[in-house]
């Protein structure tokens, strides 16, 4: 009986994109509960916040993990910065903790696995969580724009980096 009362750290990691956001929900580093994309075409700020609220209600996470746009090498546009700020405010209003993870910290987490690029990190993640393999985009050529599904892996990488930092 007691083995089912294990310690639980449920986190929601969010990675905004040009069309909405990708998300990943973890329950400890071993269990990836949910993942996916949420798309918004018009009024992106409000639609995204509504969808984040729905995810929060559905999964009741203890921590929301997002990218730290204040980091030196962050190149996020103003809209995304405002959206992330909105998520922080949303978390505050609902009594959740929000953790900001800078991109170098994510890369540092995966450096041990020999992954330095986003594509390599996605590969490492899909090896660790085989359920993500079906979302792994094909190799991006230099003339191609980034596949929108990559934001699932970016969100998962943020969540994984946060959980890894707790160990």
């Amino acid at each position: 009986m007691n083995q089912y009362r294990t310690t639980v750290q449920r986190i929601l990691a969010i990675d905004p994109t040009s069309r909405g956001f990708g998300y990943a929900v973890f329950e400890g580093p071993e269990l990836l509960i949910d993942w996916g994309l949420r798309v918004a075409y018009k009024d992106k700020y409000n639609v995204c916040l509504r969808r984040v609220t729905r995810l929060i209600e559905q999964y009741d996470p203890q921590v929301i993990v997002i990218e730290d746009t204040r980091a030196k090498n962050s190149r996020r546009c103003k809209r995304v910065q405002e959206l992330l700020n909105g998520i922080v405010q949303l978390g505050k209003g609902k009594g959740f903790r929000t953790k900001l993870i800078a991109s170098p910290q994510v890369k540092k987490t995966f450096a041990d696995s020999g992954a330095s690029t986003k594509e390599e990190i996605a590969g490492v993640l899909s090896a660790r969580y085989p359920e993500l393999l079906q979302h792994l985009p094909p190799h991006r050529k230099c003339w191609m724009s980034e596949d929108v599904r990559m934001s699932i892996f970016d969100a998962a990488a943020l969540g994984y980096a946060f959980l890894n930092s707790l160990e």
Partner: protein
Amino acid sequence: MSGILVAVDLIPSQMNALTMSQRLNNYLRTYRRRSGLYQEDVALLLGCENGSKVSRYECSAREPSLENTLAYEAIFGIPIRELYAGMYQKVEEKTMRRAKELLQKLSAQKPEQCGARRLALIKALAGAHPPHHAIPKS
């Protein structure tokens, strides 16, 4: 809307508080997505008309019948108490509370009147040990 993002650094004591939370009511969606099945596929396997019923099961808007719950176990190969981990936790806690009440009632009686096996099981339940461990091997 502009403003400075505020990072909340979590200290270990705060993280300990976080670990006390409940598990989700059910993990049907997790295991379905892990297995790569669509809601329509699961609906067909459960003998439902379409995926909407499966969607309601997954967001806990509706509880599946015992037959469907067992079908879920058969589909994913995961025990019901893992599929419904949150619900199992709640039921387990309620049962523990009732077992404590029953134990208090029985403590008024003489031990020989209670029966050793019965008492061992109830004591184990009240202490949250697996009941099958409490039953003495005959």
